[in-house]
């Protein structure tokens, strides 16, 4: 879909308003919109809201072989996506000029400023290093994407934890989160972009332009700075002539703004850390305020409740019996519970689990036995009467966990669902060991 054009009257009004030092949303010249940072349940996932602009950041890591000329340095990769969800004018799968510009600016801001210690991402020099990938998705576009994206990227990187690795001789061991706590990345400083929009050939200046202000601006100056007032990147676009004083003034404003934003990020990170430690509720679902969308109440209709019970009984008698799945909540740790045979909690308490190498011979057999047991369990429940509950998940799952501490939840599913699970389960552990040896 094409972008909605800007009408002449909007343009004229906006410029007049800017001349009178007024902005559409009632902000002052140097004001930022409200910034809100919320974290997902996983490490390294966050949503940053800058007014109505929203960016989702997700960090992931992978062990790869390093680049030839940089044998001891990890790899950082940034990718910003502008999906159609953000604005109908964005075309999917096409590298628009704006997207290329934003991606390059992000890379310059975060990679070239060396804010992440890439040397600490090296596992075996010349053979294995961590590749850290930062994916940023624009969820809603209301101007100033670059500021929101740079905040989201640095917040996601600060929040991220990579699996711990130990090297003994030439054996590399990768630890699951249950065995050893994942380690955070080492971050030297937090560069944050601050955008300045210029109007009327640089006569007027606004901080954090929104979408409509971006459309009428003459030029844009982006300054990336950290809280030590070190400029990481500076870029001017739009082809306006700026005076030295103007740039200096902008850098002063940027310093103040960056200090504020850094403090906010630190507070958000600390808060999330605290909540996680206490075992409270966290994640995106918790950050949404309930009952906020519907401000209106429905009028209460008078209801005659004289013969409700009879009717209810009738309805119950007529209705089909409830589905056979019996859910039994299992409390793993305080704050997390599991109902039925859903996804396994990856943070379960597994202190009593044996180290993997000890049961190398026995584990495969045991799993096969286990899965056969599961299979029969399934059959029984399928053919059995309606009242027979499926309780195969509780005890047996626990057993399986003890045998194989770091298997992914998907495998449990395939084992319980598929009819012939022996193959899948007996293959996987072998594969994993191969991987480990490949690292040596």
């Amino acid at each position, binding site marked *: 879909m*094409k972008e909605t054009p800007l009408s002449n009257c909007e343009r004229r009004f906006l410029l007049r308003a800017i001349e009178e030092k007024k902005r559409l949303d009632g902000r002052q010249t140097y004001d930022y919109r409200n910034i809100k940072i919320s974290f997902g349940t996983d490490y390294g996932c966050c949503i940053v809201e800058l007014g109505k602009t929203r960016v989702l950041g997700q960090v992931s890591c992978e062990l790869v072989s390093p680049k030839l000329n940089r044998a001891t340095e990890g790899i950082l990769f940034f990718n910003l996506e502008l999906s159609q969800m953000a604005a109908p004018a964005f075309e999917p799968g096409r590298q628009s000029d704006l997207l290329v510009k934003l991606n390059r600016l992000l890379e310059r801001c975060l990679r070239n400023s060396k804010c992440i210690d890439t040397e600490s991402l090296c596992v075996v020099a010349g053979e294995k290093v961590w590749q850290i990938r930062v994916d940023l998705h624009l969820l809603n576009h209301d101007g100033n994407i670059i500021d929101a994206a740079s905040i989201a990227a640095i917040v996601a990187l600060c929040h991220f934890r990579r699996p711990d690795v130990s090297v003994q001789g030439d054996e590399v061991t990768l630890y699951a989160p249950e065995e050893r706590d994942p380690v955070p990345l080492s971050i030297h400083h937090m560069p944050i972009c601050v955008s300045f929009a210029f109007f009327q050939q640089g006569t007027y200046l606004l901080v954090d332009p929104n979408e409509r202000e971006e459309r009428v601006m003459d030029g844009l100056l982006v300054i990336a700075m950290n809280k030590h007032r070190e400029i990481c990147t500076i870029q001017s676009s739009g082809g306006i002539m700026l005076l030295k004083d103007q740039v200096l003034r902008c850098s002063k404003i940027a310093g103040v703004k960056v200090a504020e934003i850094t403090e906010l990020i630190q507070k958000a990170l600390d808060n999330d850390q605290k909540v996680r430690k206490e075992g409270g509720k966290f994640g995106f679902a918790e950050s949404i305020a309930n009952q906020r969308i519907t*401000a209106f109440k429905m009028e209460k209709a008078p209801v005659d409740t004289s013969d409700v019970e009879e009717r209810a009984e009738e309805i119950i008698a007529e209705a089909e019996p409830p589905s056979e799945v019996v859910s039994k909540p299992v409390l793993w740790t305080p704050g997390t519970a599991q109902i039925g045979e859903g996804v396994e909690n990856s943070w379960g308490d597994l202190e009593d689990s044996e180290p993997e190498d000890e049961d190398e011979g026995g584990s495969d057999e045991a799993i096969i036995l286990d899965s056969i047991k599961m299979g029969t369990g399934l059959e029984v429940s399928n053919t059995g009467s309606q009242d027979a509950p499926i309780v195969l998940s509780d005890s047996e799952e626990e057993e399986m966990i003890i045998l194989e501490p770091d298997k992914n939840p998907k495998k449990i599913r395939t084992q319980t669902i598929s009819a012939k699970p022996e193959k899948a389960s007996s293959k996987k552990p072998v594969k994993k060991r191969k991987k480990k040896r490949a690292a040596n």
Partner: protein
Amino acid sequence: MAEAAGVAAESLVGGRARAACTVLNQVVLPGEELLLPEQEDAEGPGGTGERLRLNAGARPRVRVVCGPGLRRCGDRLLVTKCGRLRHKEPGGSGGGVYWVDSQQKRYVPVKGDHVIGIVTAKSGDIFKVDVGGSEPASLSYLAFEGATKRNRPNVQVGDLVYGQFVVANKDMEPEMVCIDSCGRANGMGVIGQDGLLFKVTLGLIRKLLAPDCEIIQEVGKLYPLEIVFGMNGRIWVKAKTVQQTLILANILEACEHMTADQRKQIFSRLAES
């Protein structure tokens, strides 16, 4: 009342269609089927619904109009949008009009709707106008009051026009005019060069344009203003100063999620300052 509640509950349990009159002003969901009043009489409350009717042809037919968000499905109404079911009593005989009041931002052109468009191109003897739909609408230069082949209207690219749709079909380019059937402007035409255009949801526009809407009267008491509502979710407003225009625009946007009491408070506070 208990009867009706029972029917509603039963239909929810069994997945049967509910009677349209019992869910008036309630939320309906896409995929739901609704029974019309006369069918309900024929089947009785809680009837089987699938019973063969021998005298189907003998029943007097009632004309019911399906508004937005509803579709005919056999002899029932199929809900296609999420929102509150509304009904308008008929003037004469018939079943009146049923529609679903839903909340959305994307505009779909409808014949007869008054909209605000932005002129995007002049090509030959038509203007291309962006109305927020999937396709730009066309507007003939002769469709203005007093326009002739010699006397062309003064419309520039980027101007705002207020007009109504005369052609709005599926898969076809919609067509706008800025005159009524008598050839009069009747308020339509090019909108002035000042003022602010902003977008709101389509539900808010309908709410503001409702005949008994208090918001407009209250806003009118605040400042003298000019205002144009387009059914495509665009509002153009102009007051004496930039400050007043901005205040009006922000108030109208905020009205969507305010109760009447909250709104009155804000208006009284603004009137004082």
